[in-house]
């Protein structure tokens, strides 16, 4: 059976409305990468295990490989290219760089989505670490990522709100 039906899907991607024709079997991550040019959206295991595909859907981190693009109709989607607030995105990038929380970089966009969620909700450190444990990183050994997020949380607490 070939893809006989295409669905019209419209969603907000990083603040801009996108209207696309998609076959129902295509995952959100595939569509963001291949149709919308969001190179931070990448599939790792395709099983919901690794978290490389994590994107923000309606303000929460979601496994993009387990959501069909057609299900995202009407959603507000953010990818690591343009997380909610440019200042926060810059701060996250800076902290990741400073703490060397990146090696090969494949998992990095997924971790940035988690980091932004943690900061926006000002999660306590233990919950932040637990949230970060949703994704896999095979290079860094995690502690640089945890240090980066810890520093971001401390900065956030100092400044009263977002860094």
């Amino acid at each position, binding site marked *: *059976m*070939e*893809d*006989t*039906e295409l*669905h019209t899907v419209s969603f907000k991607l990083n603040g801009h409305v996108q209207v696309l024709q998609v*076959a*129902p*079997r*295509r*995952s959100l991550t*595939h569509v963001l990468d291949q149709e919308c040019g969001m190179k931070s959206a990448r*599939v790792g295991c*395709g*099983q*919901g295990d690794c*978290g490389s595909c*994590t994107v923000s859907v309606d303000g*929460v*981190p*979601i*496994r993009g*490989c*387990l*959501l*069909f693009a*057609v*299900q995202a109709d009407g959603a507000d989607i953010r990818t690591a290219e343009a997380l909610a607030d440019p200042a926060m995105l810059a701060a996250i990038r800076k902290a990741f760089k400073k703490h060397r929380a990146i090696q090969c970089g494949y998992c990095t966009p997924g971790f940035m989505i*988690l980091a932004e*969620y943690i900061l926006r909700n000002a999660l306590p450190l233990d919950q932040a670490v*637990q*949230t970060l*444990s*949703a994704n896999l990183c095979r290079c860094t050994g995690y502690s640089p990522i945890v240090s980066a997020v810890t520093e971001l949380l401390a900065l956030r607490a100092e400044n009263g709100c977002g860094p």
Partner: protein
Amino acid sequence: MYPAPFLYHRPSGLHQALELLSRHKTDGVILAGGQSLVPRMNLRQETPKNVVDLNRIADLSTLAVVDDVLEIGAMVRHQSLCWDAEVSGLSLPSGFAQLLGRMAGAIGNLPIRLRGTIGGSLANASPKAQWALLSLLLDADIVIENAGGARCERYAEFLNRDGRTTLKPGDMITRVKIKVPSAHWRYGFAQLAPQQNRPTSAFALAAVTLQDACVRDCRIAVGACTPVPCRLQALEDWLSGRPASVDGGNDLADVAKAAVRQQAFDLEPYLEHLAAVAITRAVAQALGH
């Protein structure tokens, strides 16, 4: 990694969904949270011709207490039961609300909990599912609907000993009903996993009431290491009437192990050991040690 092609249906109401399911009895599946179904579809272990997506049916996501019965809509996400705000609005006994939060929080990880649903978990009937353990221990009623009508099944009858459910093609779980336990009940929940966020190897849930510093009522269930979650009658009988200070050490562990063996699942010795550890911890927690 692409699933096989399928036709996608997005009903906006329950009636329409049940119609679709009855029309596609042989080759249709229900898409709830998709956190177990979609991985299988990606691996083409599952190749449905029709997928019925329940995510736009608002009626299935309600959470309410009606006549002292907690009614959880099938599409309520695991994370909704973690968030105090959603559960605290129901004025449940605090111990019970905390238990719901702790068990929901023990499922997978945040992105998974934000999508996965209680109805999907129960229909999926994985032996490692936290909601199966809770439903068994608290005698939850599962409301199942199809185009022909609705029925209600006690969880112990809903799940057979071979791990299969009584769900037939065209059936859909729409609600789970749990009688809200009185505030006297105290709970303990212990889960053993190789590491956090990985599938659990064994978990146990204990609920007790105390009278004059002795155990009055008690219910204990174990799962994940067994093919289906099970109540441990022998251990419950042993514990009833004992002082609440009962030693969480060797005696309890031995009785727990014997009670698990009595279930005749023929477990590997290390699994029996894990079961005993989980049970001992859950009981100790419930007794407030």
